[in-house]
């Protein structure tokens, strides 16, 4: 389950790709009145400096829980095991005070719904500058100046005027930009964006994604984008991590993944959404993935996608496939006994049984 190596160095990351965030064998279990639920199981994740990594999956795949667990944002009913290292410092199990200091300074979050994260009775300028006053101990006047700069950085027009406005006076896209401005106020090493554009219209989404890309280009921020939207991944991510039922099932560079998805779940997701030029006809149906993401009390030693997989065999139901590179050095890892499009030359354990 726990796989060996990361492949950050192999990816063509725009910066040098030195890892800033390393997650090892992360597992999260929730205890609820209905018993325990395993939400995340043995996830490995590496984020290089200046890299944008997309984590994609459907509801219940554990992508948000993974993101929240990084800086200890999960409720106490969650039991987290494994290792989360930010710049070589262990975050998992760190005392709350230390985590609070890390959040905002070194790791910052933005969420789907900006309205509920902003205080409705304070101007946006005040809210941005308060972050600076608290974390950076700036003077009030200096923080205010910096707030204007930050709002400009995230593409808010006439920021001198906007700092005096209240959240309800802004559109959804502008509010999300304010959230980003607050998140990057202390120049965090890592920005975790959990469904940053899901609540926004497409014409607004493009602008937000541009802001994220701009932060990476200008400030060298490493960004983890959590999303269900493959369009978002295609737009901003350098590398993609596909999650299913709490496990990483595939990991690859973005172009490689979209062209050659090897896991059947990843391939199913890709062909489930309508693509330009397609029109419903008797012989042209969108690919469905039958069944549902399971809720697991414990992680079985089996492929959790087997029940929905067109290529599943007995082997899939009796042993969990490890996440491993198909072609050594390719950086394209998949957790599948029968990956799609395997060629006879591959030395992957699944090579003999091509799907």
């Amino acid at each position: 389950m726990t796989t060996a190596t990361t492949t950050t160095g192999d990816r063509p990351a725009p910066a040098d790709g030195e890892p800033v965030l390393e997650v090892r064998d992360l597992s999260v279990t929730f205890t609820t009145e209905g018993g325990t639920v395993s939400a995340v199981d043995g996830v490995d994740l590496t984020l290089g400096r200046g890299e944008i990594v997309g984590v994609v999956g459907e509801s219940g795949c554990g992508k948000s829980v993974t993101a929240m667990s990084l800086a200890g944002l999960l409720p106490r009913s969650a039991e987290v095991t494994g290792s989360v290292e930010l710049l070589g410092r262990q975050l998992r199990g760190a005392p709350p005070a230390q985590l609070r200091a890390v959040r905002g300074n070194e790791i910052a979050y933005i969420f789907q719904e900006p309205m509920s994260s902003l205080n409705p009775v304070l101007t946006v300028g005040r809210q941005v500058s308060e972050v600076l006053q608290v974390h950076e101990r700036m003077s009030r006047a200096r923080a205010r100046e910096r707030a204007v700069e930050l709002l400009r950085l995230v593409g808010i027009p006439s920021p001198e005027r906007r700092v005096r406005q209240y959240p309800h006076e802004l559109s959804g896209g502008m509010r999300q930009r304010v959230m980003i401005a607050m998140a990057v106020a202390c120049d965090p090493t890592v920005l975790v964006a959990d469904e940053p554009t899901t609540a926004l219209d497409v014409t607004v989404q493009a602008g937000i994604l541009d802001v994220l890309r701009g932060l990476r280009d200008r400030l060298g921020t490493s960004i983890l984008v959590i999303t269900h939207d493959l369009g978002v991944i295609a737009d901003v991510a350098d590398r993609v991590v596909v999650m299913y039922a709490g496990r990483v099932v595939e990991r690859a560079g973005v172009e490689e993944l979209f062209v050659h998805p090897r896991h059947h779940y990843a391939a199913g997701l890709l062909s489930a959404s309508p693509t330009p030029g397609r029109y419903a006809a008797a012989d042209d149906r969108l690919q469905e993935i039958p069944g549902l993401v399971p809720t697991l009390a414990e992680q079985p030693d089996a492929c959790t996608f087997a029940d929905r997989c067109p290529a599943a065999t007995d082997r899939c139901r009796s042993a969990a496939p490890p996440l491993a590179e198909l072609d050594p050095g390719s950086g394209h890892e998949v957790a599948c006994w029968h990956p799609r499009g395997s060629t006879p030359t591959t030395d992957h354990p699944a090579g003999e049984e091509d799907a």
Partner: protein
Amino acid sequence: MSTDTATDAGAADPGAPVLELEDLVMHFGPVRAVDGVSLSIAPGRVTALVGESGSGKSTVGRCVVRLLSPTSGTVRLGGTDVTGLGRRAMRPHRREVSIVFQDPAGSLDPRMLVGDVVAEPLRLQGRGGGRAERERRVAEQLERVGLDRSVAQRYPHELSGGQRQRVSLARALVSEPRLLVADEPTSALDVSVQASVLNLLADLQRDIGFACLFITHDLSAVEYLADDIAVLYLGQVVETGTREEVFARPRHPYTQALLAAAPVADPVRQRERTRVLLGDDLPSAIDPPSGCRFHTRCPLAVDRCATEEPVLRTVGGGGSVACHLVDDDGSGPDVRDATPGATPDATTDPDHDDRPGSPA
């Protein structure tokens, strides 16, 4: 390209449009949610009503099914003007039209068994005969939407989001309406589930031949499902046309911007595309901009756009568009050519003067 099976639906005037909206206006106090929408759907056609949040698209849908009484204008169902009809007088026309909502959690009564949910329209319309006959039809409907008939004995909360949306479809279609209003039916669902609901909707539409007003913001779903498209901006239709026309040759700058903004699940193509950034602020529907309502965000706007309101007119090559810049033969500028990666601060849009991440 459209299905032509609907003409056997047994209506009085099979050729008449299933739905006609004429200058529909719906104001909520000062908010001008819908401001003069005209639209017509022929039997068996799927017309997509596309727009962003705040465009008034759902309000149009609610006026069509008469959940709202329009401020002015007319709604005709199967040729009959139902605009002024009271609740009782409306009842005979109810079976003409059904609606499916976005939220699969809220659209089924949590206290009712699925079977009772699906049977409710039959009971309300005094049809479906006795109980046994109703149960038979419910089972038939459930199987038609791909559910087991035993689902009738379950409660909505026991079903997944996709299954609930299938139940909603079964309920909406049990009374054999000639028009289905589908208000963002897949937006709350996961990608793989969306696919199955879109497939189902397409299959049912092809088999049964009902007309459909498909309200959505999802352009990929529109391209997959719709025959005709109407693009709504701030309560007004800015462009109509067949699916092929609109996707191949969008005329209105807003339509062009929408198409340019819709993400493509292909990293190479997605990154090569010209970005058209409109700025984030949809103007207020309380005090919409003068002239063309889109002029405040339009990268191509000229002086005339701010003063003179363009009318929706038929142009050469089919379809209609409301834009001063489009000629009568349908030719006009394209925002996707006009701003090839350029900063739009030279235009009327002051927003992105400091646009991070400009393509290198």
